């Protein structure tokens, strides 16, 4: 299992469009990817759940990746966050 933290830079937080793109990205991998904040968590493949976290600009999320391809998945997801959020 791999984890990393990420602080959101995007002004609107995790809004619909990047959330949707995150879901697309996460679905590429076998591993289970979870995004958590303040005790709440959502699987990165579930759009409504991710949006439901209500992550705002400046907040820090914890991302966990667990599965056969966790190395590539983790890299891929981290890059995604850095480029889009």
């Amino acid at each position, binding site marked *: 299992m791999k984890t990393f933290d990420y602080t959101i830079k995007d002004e*609107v937080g995790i809004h*619909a*469009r990047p959330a949707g793109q995150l*879901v697309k990205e996460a679905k590429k991998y076998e591993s289970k990817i979870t995004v958590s904040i303040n005790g709440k968590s959502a699987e990165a*493949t579930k*759009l409504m759940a991710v*949006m*439901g976290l*209500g992550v*705002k600009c400046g907040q820090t999320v914890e991302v966990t990746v667990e599965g056969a391809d966790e190395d590539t998945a983790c890299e891929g997801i981290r890059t995604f966050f850095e480029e889009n959020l």
Partner: protein
Amino acid sequence: MIKLSGKPVYQGIAMGPAAVLRKEDQPVKRIRIADTETEIARLKKAGKEASQQLQKLYEKAKKEVGESSAAIFEVHQMMLEDDDYLDAIHSMICTEMVNAEFAVAMTGDNFAAMFAGMDDDYMKARAADVKDISNRLIRNLSGEKEIDFASMEPSVIVADDLTPSETVQMDKEKILAFVTVHGSANSHTSILARMMNIPALIGVPVNLNEIRSGMTVMVDGFRGEAVFEPSEEIGMAARERIQKEQDKIKLLQELKGKENRTKDGRTINIYANIGSVSDVGYALENDAGGIGLFRSEFLYLGRDDYPSEEEQFQAYRQVVQTMAGKKVIIRTLDIGADKQADYFDLGKEDNPAMGYRAIRICLKEQEIFCTQLRALLRAAVYGNLSVMYPMITSVDEVTKIYEIVERVKEELDTNGIPYKVPEQGIMIETPAAVMISDELAEMVDFFSIGTNDLTQYTLAVDRQNERLDDFYNPHHKAILKMIQMVVDNAHIAGKWAGICGELGADPKLTKRFIDMGIDELSVAPSMILPLREIVREI
């Protein structure tokens, strides 16, 4: 085939696809089903359709509005594919044995509630998105076509009832006819249908749940019939009659440019009643001699705050310039009764027809009145503009109005803003005004008789009460006598008098009106040429 009768409001015949306007809070029926597999299959199909629809919308939006605005449709597609959303619908169908529509509606509401409960404004707004995609799925499940007013093909609007604000926002080019369950012959909506030359039926007992958008419907404004999914026979007959109507219209076009002159040389002005700047086109197309009534309240309806002086000025100026020297009579704000705007905060009244409306609002809320007057006086520089004040009942009211106009003039002078004082007239639409029309004639430049309200007040019949249509006799002797009195009093004072109410367009009375000495009839644009034909035969 479903045949229904209703009351015709405008004689004409049209045929085309129905566009059903359902009030949003019509609940989705919960139906117990036995075969969950079929429901799941229906759901899948509806989902696929939805995805395709959204793809089309995305592409259209991208072209017309740009990538970032179009993005919302992509989001909708992703929401439709969300596992949690779909799982919830599936499980409701399977565990509760209900129809897909209901499962979608419930799930949609739940997710929408989740978003609405978040403390982030952006997320709160997403509740509407969830509702939107759920409604899309439900529409697809019930085989209903979506109404997209912008790219909609010309259709017959079928609704429970229509408010003046709703009809204002519709694209007139796309409307073939109106069919409503409610509405009264003299309500504003009916007047609009006549103005738009659109066949309309009211009081049609349509079951909005049985009718779907896309169904062909034939509307016969002559016989008062609406036929949904007409048979071959009926369809063909309708097409023939539509052709005949179009030929008749061509004939009338030949009357364009000719005078409104009787065989014995008497003339009468025939002007147009309009409700928006874009209607000026209709007026000119139909060879109106001028605009006898420009209903300025359309600038105030269908929005949530007051129109600014600048906005009004631009609108009035445009009309006046487009009419190029022909008279344009603009009626000041006539809100109240059946013309409602929430932001005016008028409150509920027991008798709105006899309530706080029109000039009464203007005399109490002088700022709103002054804004309109300033815009009118400024616009008067650009053409032949006249102002008309509605709902007058006393000499006192006119005196007060003139005092306010003086103040407005001083203000404009002080600020060096160019203006012109237009011809000022009043509407005679109350029995009181009729009785003192001799005194009023000394004070104003002209009268315009509002027969709709005058008849309502004189016969004590509520214009908007469908049950009273039998008691509403617009040809009542009392009304005709009143009209004669008003015309005579105007002429004694050397002023002119016209009619802007619906009665003016009544072909049975045209000769009578000319005999009475009426100077002007202001009617729906579609009636101008037919009336001219009648006048020339007298």
